[in-house]
């Protein structure tokens, strides 16, 4: 048994890559060793900015010898077959054995692979691991062709036994393995030779290198907390930053400084973001005021002046950064309090998408749509439109230009500063949400209206120019937008006909396209002003193929009200027309809605509702009201989980199947005229009565959208249906009774289908 120690020393490894690199080294090396026939007891891997280290305990000294027998062709087989076997086994004919096998004599090859020494295997596996290492990005250097994350400078490779350590003979592109490494770049740059992993870790510590990243993290966390506590302050926790910083130093030395008074008026998020993004500082908060008042930086060196020079330098850099931030903040406040006109103007020259106009045009569309949506979500239409107009203006603010991650939040600050209503300011921050599946859903009505309008405008627009997501590609994050709409509606229980909203959104685009189109095609024909119809012929596709632009009436109507567009020569010089770029088929709305339904299915599946249950509800009217749809699906899912529900489903299927068979055979539809007077059995009469009773309960329940009530009424049918099928035969010789029973079955089918399309439920 031996222990293996490997260290790959290089120039600085990016912090973000270190954890995975250590794990990759462990896995690839141990997998390779095991595959080559060695076993081991335990393996650990470590990463610092300059080294990847692997320590394997209890490695076997050599791989087991392997004996393998392979059966070949018969001895009287054609020469070619025998030659092929010799090639495959790498043996000569005289080394094959002849053995009797059933009826014939057959060649056997006995292959023996002797065991190999651990050192040879380690060297072989290590070379492969280095050459194929899965760095996210790797590079060449100098004149060589080896790739590593940064230039590889040294390989330490030791097999350690009780009687001492052996350097594994290994060389890769001129780098020869040794038993030495180097310590901290400035504290201990000289070589250190080691004899075991324990010795290695101890000597590294003495050479100012903390090998274990969690130890570096703990040290930083502890020292930072102590420094802050001593001054009555606390660290703003940031695990991501902690991990990153621990990957930037081999010898963490934590230093704390104060933020100058002149910057304390900046929003805390700005201070935090600026310090974190630019300087990798932790923020230090005063628990009494809640303000960010200090910073903690982590140096990689102990100095004679106890870090005074380093801290002063860092403070100076911070001053420059925060001066910039304050400049942005003050500049932005000036624009904000003077009406934000400058930002509006500048958004006009920013393209959102070359087929979907500028950012400003987009904002105008969103505002129009938010106004339409507002009444459905309990928001004031004017406020919603105002909020939509303001919500994205911060995209042109200096602060967001510098820190894109502050978009929305700065919008809120600036809207507040401009004295806009609180709902408007809140919408600026909240309308981007929900961004991910775990992001909170806004609840304030104005925010909800803007958030919905924003997402639906994006979806509709990209759908119209046929930029739909395909497979794993979704460059405009349309799936996220659709899920956002779904979560906004469901989370707030908002009753909204999505088809109407999609149509509204589409009409806004339609008007823009109509304008562009007119200018291109019909500008010379405007001797007869006031003829809106000519403008829209482009939207009239091939009517026979159903290729009719669904917004045509809307556009004509709109142009009638805005005749000046047809007569005003100033509007002639517009931007390039976009004829032919847009979807204009009648099923546009349905296609967008289907996308919503697909996303809804994914969303509900995550919540444990089966896709066939959803399909059963999607087939019902009003399926563009997602809240209604989900309530129906939830009720149905719950119903189907009960025994009654499951049995009723079977009863329904039986009824439906019998009916379908009979209808196919007879060529008629049985749907009317069942009469209890033709009943032969009490159970049959009881079913008539039960259907009457259920119908009387289900219809009002459905009208009141009481799906649970309707389902429980259906549940009451289970026993009578079962009883009926037990006694009564449908296809009797008596044609009157048969017809009557089929018509009775059709009542079951109809009634069930009024609740949900149970034909789509599996099982």
């Amino acid at each position, binding site marked *: 048994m031996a222990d293996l120690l490997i260290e790959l020393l290089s120039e*600085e490894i990016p912090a973000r890559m270190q954890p995975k690199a250590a794990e990759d080294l462990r896995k690839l090396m141990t997998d390779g060793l095991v595959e080559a026939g060695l076993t081991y007891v335990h393996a650990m891997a470590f990463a610092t*900015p300059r080294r990847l280290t692997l320590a394997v305990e209890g490695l076997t000294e050599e791989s087991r010898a392997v004996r393998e027998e392979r059966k070949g062709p018969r001895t009287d087989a054609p020469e070619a077959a025998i030659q092929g076997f010799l090639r495959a086994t790498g043996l000569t004919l005289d080394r094959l054995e002849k053995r009797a096998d059933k009826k014939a004599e057959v060649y056997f090859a006995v292959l023996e692979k002797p065991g190999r020494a651990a050192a040879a295997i380690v060297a072989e596996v290590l070379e492969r691991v280095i050459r194929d290492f899965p760095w996210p990005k790797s590079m*060449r250097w100098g004149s060589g062709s080896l790739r590593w994350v940064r230039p590889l400078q040294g390989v330490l490779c030791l097999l350690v036994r009780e009687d001492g350590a052996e350097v594994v003979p290994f060389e890769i592109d001129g780098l020869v393995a040794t038993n030495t490494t180097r310590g901290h770049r*400035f504290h201990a740059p000289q070589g250190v030779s080691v004899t075991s992993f324990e010795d290695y870790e101890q000597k590294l510590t003495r050479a100012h290198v903390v090998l274990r990243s969690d130890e570096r993290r703990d040290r930083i966390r502890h020292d930072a907390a102590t420094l802050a506590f001593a001054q009555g302050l606390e660290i703003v926790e940031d695990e991501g930053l902690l991990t990153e910083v621990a990957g930037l130093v081999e010898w963490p030395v934590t230093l704390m400084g104060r933020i100058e008074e002149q910057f304390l008026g900046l929003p805390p998020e700005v201070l935090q973001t600026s310090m974190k993004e630019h300087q990798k500082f932790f923020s230090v908060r005063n628990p009494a005021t809640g303000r960010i008042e200090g910073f903690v930086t982590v140096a*990689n060196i102990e100095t*004679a002046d106890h870090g005074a020079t*380093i801290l002063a*330098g*860092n403070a100076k850099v911070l001053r420059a950064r925060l001066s910039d931030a304050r400049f942005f903040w003050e500049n932005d406040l000036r624009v904000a309090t003077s009406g934000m006109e400058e930002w509006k103007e500048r958004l006009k020259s*920013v393209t959102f998408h070359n087929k979907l106009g500028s950012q400003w045009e987009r904002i105008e569309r969103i505002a129009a749509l938010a106004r339409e949506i507002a009444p459905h979500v309990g928001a004031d239409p004017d406020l919603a439109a105002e909020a939509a107009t303001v919500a994205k203006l911060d995209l042109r603010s200096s602060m967001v230009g510098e820190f894109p991650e502050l978009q929305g939040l700065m919008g809120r600050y600036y809207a507040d500063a401009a004295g806009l209503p609180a709902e408007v300011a809140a919408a600026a921050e909240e309308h981007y949400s929900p961004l991910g599946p775990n992001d909170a859903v806004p609840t304030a009505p104005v925010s909800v209206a803007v958030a919905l309008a924003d997402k639906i405008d994006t979806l509709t627009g990209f759908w119209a120019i046929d930029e739909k997501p395909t497979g794993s590609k979704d460059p405009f994050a349309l799936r996220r937008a659709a899920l956002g709409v779904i979560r906004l509606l469901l989370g707030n229980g908002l009753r909204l006909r999505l088809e109407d909203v999609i149509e509204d959104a589409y009409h806004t685009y339609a008007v823009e396209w109509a304008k562009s189109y007119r200018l291109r095609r019909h500008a010379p024909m405007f001797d007869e002003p006031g003829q809106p119809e000519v403008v829209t012929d482009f939207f009239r596709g091939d009517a026979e193929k159903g290729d009719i632009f669904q917004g045509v009436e809307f556009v004509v109507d709109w142009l009638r009200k805005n005749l000046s567009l047809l007569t005003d020569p100033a509007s002639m010089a517009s931007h390039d027309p976009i004829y032919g770029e847009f979807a204009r088929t009648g099923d546009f709305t349905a296609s967008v809605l289907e996308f919503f339904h697909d996303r809804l299915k994914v969303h509900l599946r995550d919540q444990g509702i089966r896709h066939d249950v959803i399909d059963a509800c999607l087939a019902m009217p009003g399926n563009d009201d997602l809240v209604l749809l989900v309530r129906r699906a939830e009720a149905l899912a719950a119903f189907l989980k009960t025994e009654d529900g499951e049995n009723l489903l079977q009863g329904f299927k039986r009824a439906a199947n019998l009916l379908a068979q009979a209808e196919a055979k007879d060529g008629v539809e049985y749907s009317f005229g069942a009469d209890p007077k033709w009943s032969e059995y009490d159970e049959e009469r009881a079913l008539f009565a039960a259907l009457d009773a259920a119908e009387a309960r289900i219809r009002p329940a459905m009208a009141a959208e009481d799906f649970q009530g309707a389902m429980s009424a259906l549940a009451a049918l289970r026993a009578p249906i079962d009883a009926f099928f037990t006694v009564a035969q449908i296809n009797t010789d008596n044609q009157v009774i048969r017809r009557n029973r089929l018509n009775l079955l059709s009542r079951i089918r109809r009634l069930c289908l009024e609740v949900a399309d149970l034909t789509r439920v599996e099982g």
Partner: protein
Amino acid sequence: MAELPLSFQEIILRLQAYWGARGCAILQPYDMEVGAGTFHPATTLRALGSRPWAAAYVQPSRRPTDGRYGENPNRLQHYYQYQVLIKPSPPNLQELYLGSLEAIGIDTSLHDIRFVEDDWESPTLGAWGLGWEVWCDGMEVSQFTYFQQVGGHDCRPVSGELTYGLERLAMYVLGVAHVMDMPFNDPSSPIPLTYGDIFRQTEEEYSRHNFDAADTERLFRHFEDAEKECRRLLDNEDLDPRTGKRIVMAHPAYDQCIKASHLFNLLDARGVISVTERQAYIGRVRALAKLCADAFVRTEAGGHTESAAA
């Protein structure tokens, strides 16, 4: 530890002496408007091909959007970069670099020097490399890059490139808070000059020019001209009819590429290029850089030999 430098120019002179002593050819700035020292043909073109190379130089650089009328303590539309390019990159390049910091008075036992991941990419040059930004006490003082590709060509061997932002570095070493207050020559000279004495007025003039006055029509036109001229030069036959020699005009064409790049920067500063157009313009400059790189590797300096071509 050497004595601390006293002026901006002393820092430059010490860098020149340091890299000169380590075998670099000390070149002079390129005589054109460029956005960064990388644009100097001694870097962009010489990073290509198989021939060894070692050069260091100061390059005045222009970033029109960074103009602040001379008021910002550390933002300038015209500034100096110090550039070192060594091909193939030597194994001790990090140590050599740290030595250069010592040479200009940065005591590495007192400061916190860090190599922080920063992959360099120049979309206009079609170039990228891996490396770091070097931090001194939290301040970025240099860019350190191993070139992997330039003008769409793989770099073999790989060049090591060092870029020092001279003003910022010098301000730190000299302990100056505002760039305009930095002593340019020795403050005890008979006529002491600060950075501001030399550049404050020009920063104002160029800021106004870049942001408001530059004639955008003309800039657009000149951009088109430079683009055309670059392509036209490269469309010429390799064989020069006058001398009968094979003369590929890689450098004259590359000058036009540099021009186009700077004109684009000016148009960008004037705010007349939209976000989507921006990508298109960058793509056009990159296409030129790529053509120039293609041409350079067909020259002698680019490693071309008659036997290899045959």
